[in-house]
């Protein structure tokens, strides 16, 4: 690490200024605009006149709104927690599978690695279109399940309380699993062989080797990946909006769709900004946690 000296200042600035200037333009002004709007009753229809200052009224309304608790719960539990957990487990399982000896010997490793790229190259809007066809009343799943006799009537996978979240998570998982799997695969490639050999000498079985050697090696990757997944999914509005439109009713409404619905359908820009600011606040707390426990530890060297 090169210590700070005046002669380097020019070079450092030249490296940093273009990027930070762009980022400031892109994020800071819009964020300030939002913060201000969240204290007004601005609507899209009153944009020419401008909104009136209403203090914290939007925030009060939002906390009083009985539906808002559900929105927070859906976002925190289903979208952030459950979806992340599923993808970590499946991603890890898939990586282990691809990395395993039988799969390599069966000549499937390259095919599997290529198959992983397929969902990733698929835009979310396309992913939702196809999966909606699968979940349809006369769709693939209903036909298979009916043929197998698992169900006697077609199920509205995206239309009832019991199945709508699992179905949504399936779409999200399919589309975003590749990044998780590839990351775990990369980490598996750096598994320390000597530790494995030592464990084998001690007569450890496959399971013990996994628990004692593989898992501890992958743990840091899991933590980082988990946090990244939470961040990416928390802000994502596309899957829920395109797949269920936040329905049935408002059953799958999440923060990002609430911002969209209030801002772009009800035109209440002030209220919508307030919901957006709540999102930013939650993410700031989360980000501080992330920065403190993960980023700054991973990059101890450079801090």
């Amino acid at each position: 690490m090169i210590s700070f000296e005046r002669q380097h200042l020019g070079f450092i600035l030249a490296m940093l200024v273009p990027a930070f200037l762009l980022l400031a333009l892109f994020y800071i002004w819009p964020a300030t605009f939002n913060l201000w709007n969240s204290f007004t009753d601005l609507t899209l229809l009153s944009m020419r006149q401008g909104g009136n200052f209403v203090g914290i009224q939007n925030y009060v309304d939002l906390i009083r709104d009985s539906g808002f608790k559900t929105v927070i719960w859906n976002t925190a539990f289903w979208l952030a927690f459950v979806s992340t957990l599923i993808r970590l487990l499946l991603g890890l399982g898939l990586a282990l599978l691809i990395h395993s000896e039988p799969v390599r010997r069966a000549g499937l490793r390259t095919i599997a690695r290529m198959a992983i790229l397929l969902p990733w190259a698929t835009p979310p809007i396309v992913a939702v279109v196809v999966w909606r066809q699968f979940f349809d009343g006369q769709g693939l799943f209903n036909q298979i399940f009916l043929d197998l006799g698992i169900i006697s009537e077609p199920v509205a996978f995206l239309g009832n309380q019991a199945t709508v979240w699992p179905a949504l998570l399936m779409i999200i998982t399919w589309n975003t699993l590749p990044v998780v799997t590839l990351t775990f695969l990369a980490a598996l490639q750096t598994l320390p062989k000597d530790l494995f050999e030592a464990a084998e000498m001690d007569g450890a079985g496959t399971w013990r080797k996994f628990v004692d050697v593989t898992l501890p090696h992958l743990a840091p990757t899991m933590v980082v990946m988990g946090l990244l997944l939470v961040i990416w999914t928390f802000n994502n509005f596309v899957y829920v909006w395109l797949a269920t439109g936040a329905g049935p009713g408002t059953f799958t409404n999440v923060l990002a769709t609430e911002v969209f619905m209030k801002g772009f359908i009800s035109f209440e820009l002030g209220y919508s900004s307030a919901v957006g600011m709540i999102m930013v606040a939650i993410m700031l707390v989360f980000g501080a946690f992330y920065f403190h426990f993960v980023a700054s530890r991973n990059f101890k060297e450079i801090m």
Partner: protein
Amino acid sequence: MLKLSGMTLVASLLLGTAVKAETSIVFRYNDGDVAVIEAAVEEFEAANPDIDVTVERIAWGDARTQFLREALIGGGPDVVHIAFVWPLEMGQAVALQPLNDLISENGIQSGIDDFVAQDLFTSKEGSIFAVPWTTDTFTLVYNKDLLSEAGISEFPSEWPALAEASRKIHEATGKAGFGFSAGSAASNVIWFMLNYYWWSNGHALIVDDGAGGYKMGITPEEVAEGFEYFASFMGDGGNPDTNISVSSWSDPSIVNGMISGHQAIAFMPPATFRSMLDTYRSQTGSEETPFASATIPAGSAGGISHLGGRSLGINSNTKHPEESFRLVQYLTSKGFFEKHLKTQMPAQKALLSSVDFGPEMAGFATQLANGRSWGAYANPKTPIGEMWNETGRSFGSFLIGQISAEVAAQDFYDKISGMLGK
């Protein structure tokens, strides 16, 4: 500021020549048949060599927000294709300009009075914010063969009979009876059906209060009754439960269900019905179809549907109002409808009477005469888009068993009357 114009790039690549015109205007058209409009615009340009028109398109789902956002910040297309219920809100927000002067100076077809649904375009102060362009209404369409298979000789003409017929068809044939999209997305179908039901029974969500304002024209009980009526179709009532996850009237589960003979009755606008007939004909290779259109079942006030359609507005920011208006005049002309936009019905009484609907579309023709304008719904306090969204949400929450019809109806009622009270 460097602004690469893909427009000019592509135009010169494709045509090899630069199009030189005095005035350029942009027309935003939102339906899928852009090619039809482009052909018409070429004809318009040939007749008006001083005007160059560019056609662009935004999907309907995004069109309202996008135009408002653009126009209110000082941009946007010159002429815009909008739904029947948007002109007043867009005019009052100063996104559209009043057309009164342009109309009185240049005239429009057989006069502005000849256009339908006047109350949706003219503000209380008398400003005309758009010109009605095409009109339609939703109604019920059905498969004659499936109905007779279930022993129903005549299409039900009242609401309870419709529910009974749907159940009977499902029991007798195992097929879907009246299959409709019961989903709750922002542009749901249930909004139209509920309003038709309420209107036919003499109620309306919003009515004029006779003193220049608006009030609720329905009780929470009547709302709940409508919710329960349509919920009674689900499952054994003939509407497959899987339609809870479908929110569009043109969803394949409805349209393909009808085409393949798995469903007997559906609810749709004429454009969807036409495309359904076309698909049926191309798949079976026969001109004959088993389909017919009916009218909306009657209640105490008759069988009432909404007079829907599209209108044309002129952006308040346009630098070329005269040229824009010339395009509007051309697009509303008899020649345009006869030669180009043959699949749509003109929103002018004089032209409408000469349209030949054909045998399958007869129900639409009759129903159009029983259509009512949204009227008081289009007021500054209760944007239709928001009521539409709320209707789907409340009905959906009830349908999946989260809350009872009474609670859902009361919540809904409170939300709408809350909007009126603001």
